């Protein structure tokens, strides 16, 4: 026996009342409330249904076969879809990637553009502060003594009046003193569901220092900074960052970032946060990276210490004259200067052509090492759970080798002083001709020591299918096109 639930009629009454309220008080931010509090509809529905069922049970009426029928679950799914969509387009969350959001936003209003322009004379080395910014900013150092801002502000709103109001609320300001310029976009002042984003180009004196605070509100904005000799500091909830030719120290604190790309930095780089790809090239200062990055990490030609700390991997190197590439499950390095330390849970490791000491500790990883240049230095490798270890040594190497596996084969094709002792499930290789200690140990896996041939190709990172990784070129933020002169409303 099925009885109609109370919820459907109540939902209809509630929705009717809400929309009626909106018609009577047009200023009521109905969609705002709905976007935020819609999950309580689900709770209300569940509680009502639960009450009904318990009531039926208490009055000895037969239960329905299921508490919520298939059709009602369909309605729940629809409600969730609408709720989450609303929540996302109102800018509360980042459930969908940006590209879907733009499509969603189009359903809820139009976009209105307003021009932005301003300038301020400054000293030669001003500190430029950009406050609570959302959108794309392109900052370029020039031989000048002024800060000049051009661009446009895009406001999404249901009507022109709302957009005009938001434009006034989020008025653009450029203030401060010649040494301390403040660029304020006031986007967070535009309340309600209207979203404001800006595309601006800021020309600054070459000696300027940049400090930018991104205000994401679920939206991603990119910072693109070129030719600045001062320090660069960016904090943002969600931004891609591209830096080129920066003279001072760089500090990036990004809660989310799809890409961080830095080329030709004279100072240090300090990067914190979570994100996707990192691409660093020609950095003269020390590099420190702390956070979780799920994309491809590439380091080329870093001339001071490099320290990477992730949730499962820690890596330190004295210098990287060559390159390191780290897709999610792999570590490949070529031409590194030690001391090198690498701790990882499960990245497979391949390192070729390294000097000075090397220390690798892994839980479960295949490791392939090719020191390349002589004389060798101390090498210490240990896989705590399992993994194959391969060491390819130049023919004239001097070393004191101890290589063992707890369970697995040992294979020596180097010969010379190396003696193989396969006993029980595992085995050990030992041999010394008066060089540094090479200690290799795997708990389970194959242990191989072989002679490296001088013309082996450098190691390349691989994913599961053996394909070569390649990051597609990331297009920079395009220059802001000029805006047609604004016509005065008639």
């Amino acid at each position, binding site marked *: 026996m099925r009885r109609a639930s109370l919820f459907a009629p109540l939902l209809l009454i509630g929705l009717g009342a809400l929309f009626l309220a909106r018609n009577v008080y047009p200023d009521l931010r109905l969609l705002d409330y709905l976007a935020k509090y819609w*999950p309580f509809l*689900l*709770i209300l*529905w*569940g509680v009502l249904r639960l009450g009904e*069922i318990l009531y039926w049970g208490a009055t000895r009426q037969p239960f*329905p076969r299921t*508490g919520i029928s298939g059709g009602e679950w369909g309605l*729940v799914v629809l409600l969730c879809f609408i709720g989450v969509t609303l929540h996302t387009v109102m800018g509360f969350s980042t459930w969908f990637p940006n590209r879907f959001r733009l499509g969603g936003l189009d359903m809820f209003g139009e976009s209105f553009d307003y021009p932005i322009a301003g300038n301020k004379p400054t000293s030669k080395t001003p500190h430029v502060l950009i406050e609570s910014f959302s959108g794309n900013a392109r900052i370029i150092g020039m031989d000048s003594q002024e800060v000049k801002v051009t661009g446009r502000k895009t406001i999404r709103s249901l009507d022109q009046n709302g957009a005009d109001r938001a434009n006034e609320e989020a008025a653009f300001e450029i203030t401060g003193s010649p040494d301390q310029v403040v660029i304020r976009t006031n986007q967070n002042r535009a309340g309600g569901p209207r979203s404001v984003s800006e595309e601006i180009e800021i020309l600054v004196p070459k000696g300027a220092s940049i400090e930018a605070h991104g205000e994401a509100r679920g939206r991603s904005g990119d910072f693109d900074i070129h030719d600045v000799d001062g320090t660069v500091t960016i904090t943002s909830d969600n931004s891609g960052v591209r830096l080129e030719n920066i003279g001072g120290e760089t500090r990036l604190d990004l809660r989310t970032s799809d890409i961080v790309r830095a080329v030709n930095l004279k100072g240090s780089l300090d990067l914190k946060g979570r994100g996707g790809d990192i691409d660093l090239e020609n950095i003269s200062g020390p590099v420190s990276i702390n956070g979780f990055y799920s994309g491809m990490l590439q380091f080329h030609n870093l001339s001071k210490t490099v320290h990477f700390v992730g949730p499962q991997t820690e890596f330190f190197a004295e210098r990287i004259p060559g390159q390191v590439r780290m897709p999610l499950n792999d570590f490949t390095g070529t031409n590194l200067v030690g001391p090198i330390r690498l701790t990882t849970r499960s990245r497979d490791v391949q390192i070729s052509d390294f000097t000075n000491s090397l220390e690798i500790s892994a839980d479960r990883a295949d490791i392939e090492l090719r020191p390349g240049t002589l004389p060798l230095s101390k090498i210490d490798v240990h896989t705590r759970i399992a993994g194959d270890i391969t060491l390819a040594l130049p023919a004239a190497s001097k070393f004191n080798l101890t290589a063992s596996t707890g369970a697995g084969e040992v294979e020596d094709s180097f010969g010379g002083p190396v003696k193989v002792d396969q006993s029980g499930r595992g085995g050990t290789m030992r041999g010394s001709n008066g060089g540094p200690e090479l200690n290799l140990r795997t708990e389970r896996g194959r242990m191989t020591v072989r002679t490296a041939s001088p013309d082996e190709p450098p190691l390349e990172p691989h994913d599961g299918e053996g394909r070569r990784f390649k990051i597609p070129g990331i297009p920079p933020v395009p220059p802001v096109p000029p805006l047609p002169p604004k016509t005065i409303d008639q």
Partner: protein
Amino acid sequence: MNTPPPLPDPPPGALMRAVTGPLLLITLGVLLAMDHLGQVSFGRTWPALLIVFGACKLMERVGSTSV
């Protein structure tokens, strides 16, 4: 079997079975509300749905075998 009462007891487990849907719905609502209002993302809390569903199914079994 004696003469059945005019309104028999519902079969064991039926209460739990009927209550599973609403409980899941309430859990879903609470998790989404936490996501929208607080800092706990639904992406982290969704396994609670599985736990609630599993617990309900378990209670259903326990109810129907012990009576």
